[in-house]
């Protein structure tokens, strides 16, 4: 496989390309609104459903809104949903996983039961249930998508804490009288951080996918918001005559997910191949 050398390191070409896509996503997410593009919300019914042109690179949708600027604006929502959901799942999961793994006994018993029950729901169905209760909106979307990654991070940190607890450096920290809080935060958590980061990258792709699935189903957010899943849903009725309305947001989503998956896989294989089994 072709590789590219960067400084002392050499990276596979496909990883460099994936990193470029991820960088583009982050750039569009942060700076999208400041770029000299059409207003992603501005309607112009005179120019609806136009084919791609030099004025509208990806054409226009049924309300005459510029598809390219909507795609760029969508990056922000994709990032917010993905990072927000994974961050939420990671914080909650890691916290309870640490506590369950370190203290064991009834805390662990309750934790494990709760995880079992959470895993009894298929992912999208759990997310749909949360949206049903919390109503539509960005916040409930993040919550809905984030909840399903709690068991992933919870199990990972519980398992690793169980192993780390018996290590000598933890035993010696305890022997010199460190509090449990200090041991967990200063001695055990730093050893977990890397695995959590790797699994987090892999979870990012899944979170973005589930978020887009909910908005595609029309239950996550208001349809005016330029989010890729919503755009696919809005373009669906017109897709036989204007396939670019679904192809553009679809391929964008696919490209971002592929890039994130490849980067995550690469990080995992390089830094912690043990994670290969069963964690995502």
């Amino acid at each position: 496989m072709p590789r590219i050398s960067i400084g002392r390191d050499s990276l596979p070409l496909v990883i460099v390309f994936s990193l470029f896509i991820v960088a583009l996503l982050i750039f569009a997410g942060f700076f999208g609104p400041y770029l000299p593009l059409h207003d992603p919300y501005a309607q112009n019914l005179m120019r609806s459903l136009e084919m791609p042109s030099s004025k509208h690179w990806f054409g226009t949708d049924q309300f005459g809104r510029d598809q390219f600027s909507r795609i760029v604006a969508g990056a922000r929502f994709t990032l917010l949903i993905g990072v927000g959901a994974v961050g939420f799942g990671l914080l909650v999961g890691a916290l309870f996983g640490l506590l369950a793994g370190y203290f064991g006994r009834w805390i662990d018993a309750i934790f494990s039961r709760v995880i079992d029950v959470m895993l009894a729901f298929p992912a999208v169905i759990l997310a749909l249930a949360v949206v049903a209760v919390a109503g539509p909106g960005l916040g409930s979307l993040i919550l809905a998508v984030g909840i399903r990654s709690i068991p992933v991070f919870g199990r990972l940190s519980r398992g690793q804490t169980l192993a780390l607890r018996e290590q000598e450096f933890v035993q010696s920290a305890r022997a010199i009288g460190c509090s449990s809080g200090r041991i967990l935060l200063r001695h055990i958590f730093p050893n977990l951080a890397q695995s959590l980061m790797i699994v987090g990258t892999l979870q990012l792709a899944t979170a973005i996918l589930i978020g887009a699935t909910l908005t595609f189903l029309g239950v996550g957010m208001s349809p005016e918001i330029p989010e890729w899943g919503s755009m696919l849903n809005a373009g669906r009725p017109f897709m036989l005559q204007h396939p670019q309305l679904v192809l553009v947001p679809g391929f964008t989503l696919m490209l971002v997910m592929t890039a994130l998956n490849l980067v995550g896989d690469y990080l995992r294989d390089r830094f912690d191949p043990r994670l290969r089994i069963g964690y995502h």
Partner: protein
Amino acid sequence: MGLMLLSYLGHRITHLFITLFFVSFIVFAMVRMIPGDPALVMAGPEATPEIVEQLRASLGLDQPFYLQYWIFLERLRGGDLGDSFQTHQSVLKEIGMRLPATLQLAAAGILISVLLGASLGVLAALRPGRSIDTLARLISLFGVSSPTFFTGLIFILAFGYYLRLLPFAGSGGLRFLILPAVTISLSGVAFISRLTRSSMLEVLSQDYVRTAWAKGLPPRKVILKHALRNALLAPITVIGLQFGHMLSGVIVIEIIFTWPGTGKLFIDSILFRDFPVIQGLILAYTVIFALVNVGVDLLYALIDPRIELG
């Protein structure tokens, strides 16, 4: 063996009931967790105060919490999931009418992902680095990276609209099943083919496989009888998990292909906040998911006699 299997089955079913008990509690608590006044939200903006009061009483929201749950379980035991707010039909009937179509699609999806995934994985493992391996890699990369709903739309455009090979809307006969079933199977094909490939590669390098080659057995026998049977154990464990993805995928795919299953009912009931239907469907999905997982565990035990049950 028979006795152990029986006691294992008993163990798993107890476990199943405990999980379902918790699930039923969550589904029950769902409605009570709606921010604000659940009765007001559920009745909708046009409801008169009398209707809201009526709803509150029929849900038992004026009763203490533990009593509410007891009433919920009592009704559940009798198969009473309440009536839909939209159609005023019994939820059990609404779901029962559509569930077979959903299960048919999910079963077809699982079947395709296992058959296609396992064969692709075996072929890729037999010729690592060759074109069939690359093809398997590409298919699994696509299966993992393409959102199910986008794959569905592409298939509709490509095979349904441009090539006019297959029908892409509605149901009736096997031809209507092909496109949606293949669509939902793709992520499973990706996962299972990768898993089969790596476990097949591992098995092929084992001593007993080398022995089988050395004693001059025909390739078909070595591969199918000695290697494959052992290589399939790893993929089988994930089928149960895959079924969860499958159920999630089915909801989306049913909407795209206008398949007459529970998917549209589920989404409509979320949009209308038709909670009896939402509760009923979530219960139905989790029960099916749990049962499939028990089934897969048993299958696993049957295929591999070494597995310690319990």
